[in-house]
């Protein structure tokens, strides 16, 4: 999973708008607790990915994230003692002691899992739809080295994936059983430090260490950039207002409390609409 320029409004929006858009969606996922609202944020991210042409990458990220979410749900249900509605009695368990699984702990675990999936999807959308070089240019006036480190760090993952593929191809040429994924992962991660040193050496040779703070360069925002910045601001405000005004109330403990008033579906629909509206204008998105 890495950035590749595609013909989509999000790719055409620029790094500033792309970063703000992904951050606003992630902030909404962190601020909101109602399952309906979290589902709306996740739906918005997936729909945005489809509209930006990065659906296969996000689908892959979601497939990786769902077992992780299930694990969070399971751990929460087993460890948390809160909740009044017992659904499974497990009695005395080693290490855990007296354990009852409650509906409330299970639902809250599912909410935490959904939040984790949504945040992973936001990260995946950022990785696939925001140009890391533009991000570097964006932040190099603030802190050149930090921006460089962050950009390289996000690029290390695709580099390691390519390394793994090369290792796999090389090992397939050898006789005997094909190597396990674990062996490949070990080989790739063992080379992380070497790869980092390679990159550092290359940067030094190219004079990155002697870089000075670049002069201010104002780049005008495109029509798409403005649309995504507006969308990000609206999503953020909507999330904060929903939280502060309790438009989508949700409480898991001690008993589930999630009254579905008229406001909750309206706000959820508004959030999805806000997130997708910038994709309507597809003029001038050709790369």
């Amino acid at each position, binding site marked *: 999973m890495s950035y590749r320029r595609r013909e989509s409004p999000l790719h055409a929006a620029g790094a500033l708008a792309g970063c703000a858009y992904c951050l606003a969606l992630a902030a909404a996922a962190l601020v909101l607790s109602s399952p309906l609202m979290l589902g709306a944020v996740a739906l918005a991210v997936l729909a945005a990915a489809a509209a930006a042409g990065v659906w296969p990458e996000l689908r892959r990220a979601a497939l990786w994230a769902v077992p992780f979410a299930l694990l969070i749900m399971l751990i929460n249900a087993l460890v*948390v*003692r809160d*909740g009044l509605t*017992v659904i499974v*009695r497990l*009695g005395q368990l080693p290490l855990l002691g*007296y354990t009852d699984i409650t509906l409330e702990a299970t639902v809250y675990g599912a909410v935490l899992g959904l939040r984790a999936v949504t945040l992973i999807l936001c990260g995946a959308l950022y990785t696939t739809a925001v140009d890391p070089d533009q991000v570097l240019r964006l932040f190099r006036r603030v802190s050149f080295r930090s921006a460089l480190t962050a950009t390289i760090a996000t690029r290390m993952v695709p580099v390691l994936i390519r390394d793994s593929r090369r290792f796999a191809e090389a090992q397939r040429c050898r006789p005997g059983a094909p190597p396990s994924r674990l062996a490949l992962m070990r080989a790739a991660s063992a080379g992380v430090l070497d790869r980092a040193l390679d990159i550092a050496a290359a940067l030094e040779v190219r004079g990155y260490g002697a870089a000075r703070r670049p002069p201010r360069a104002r780049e005008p925002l495109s029509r798409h950039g403005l649309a995504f910045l507006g969308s990000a601001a609206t999503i953020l405000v909507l999330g904060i207002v929903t939280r502060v005004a309790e438009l989508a109330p949700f409480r898991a*403990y001690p008993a589930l409390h999630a009254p579905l008033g008229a406001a909750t579906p309206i706000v959820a629909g508004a959030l999805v609409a806000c997130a997708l509206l910038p994709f309507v204008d597809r003029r001038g998105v050709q790369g």
Partner: protein
Amino acid sequence: MLARIRIALAAAVVAAGASGCGLGPGPGTADVTLTVTRDFGSGQVATITRSKVPGSETVMRMLERSLRVRTRYGGGFVESIDGFSGTADRRDWFYYVNGIEAPVGAASTVVHRGDRIWWDLHDWSATESIPAVVGSFPEPFVHGIGGRRLPTTLECADDVARACSQVTNALDADGVPVASQQLGTGSGSDSLGVVVGTWADVRDELVASLIQRGPSLSGVYARFAGPGELQLLDPRGRVVRALTAGAGLIAATAHYSSEPIWLITGTDPTGVLAAARALTPARLRDHFALAVSGSSDMPLPLDGAT
């Protein structure tokens, strides 16, 4: 192979059922009382009696079902009840079931028929543990510990026959048969002990030696300075009052995880008789321990201003 798997699965299901596992909350229980107080029972917060209690009810679940509760550490530790919260200066919520400090957290303590659950917000600077309290009388004698009623042994000194008879009658009135035995025999494990005698008579008993070593070991905020003086302590363990002739004490304590022992004692036989007469649910209600002098009751620990 398939048959073996089926047998293993059937065995697992049977084992799970036998160990209390299952779907849903399971069968409920009845007649449980929940009392919430602060400052060693001196301030009442709530008293709730439930004639029917749902299955798999734990002390924490019953509390959360009845009152506004805030918890920490994954629901294992009570932070506040009905807005009353613990503070950083060693003041927290503690709970007792049938007058006995539970060895595990409230989320792991299952509620049984007839249990008296008592939550109290108090200063624990003098002791982190108060193994037993008398304020749930006639518990633990009637419904026992963990849903299991235990036999009660009564040890009386020779010079307090009237007090001994008073204690026997008080326990009889609540349907608790007692087995009388020689002073110094000890109640043994799996039984509740009641020791009656003047301080001079009982000072060599285990329960007396625990009390004499102060609240940090016994959880009882009183001690004797010789056989003729009963010192009453405040929540910080400081002596705030001394009683002499005619003073009595009802207290309960336990040695580590053994069953609690009740001590009904006094500076002299008059004091012991006064303490024995206080062995009623009304006079002991919500007190950690009780000192008596004549007809006046002094719940312990004693407020420093008293």
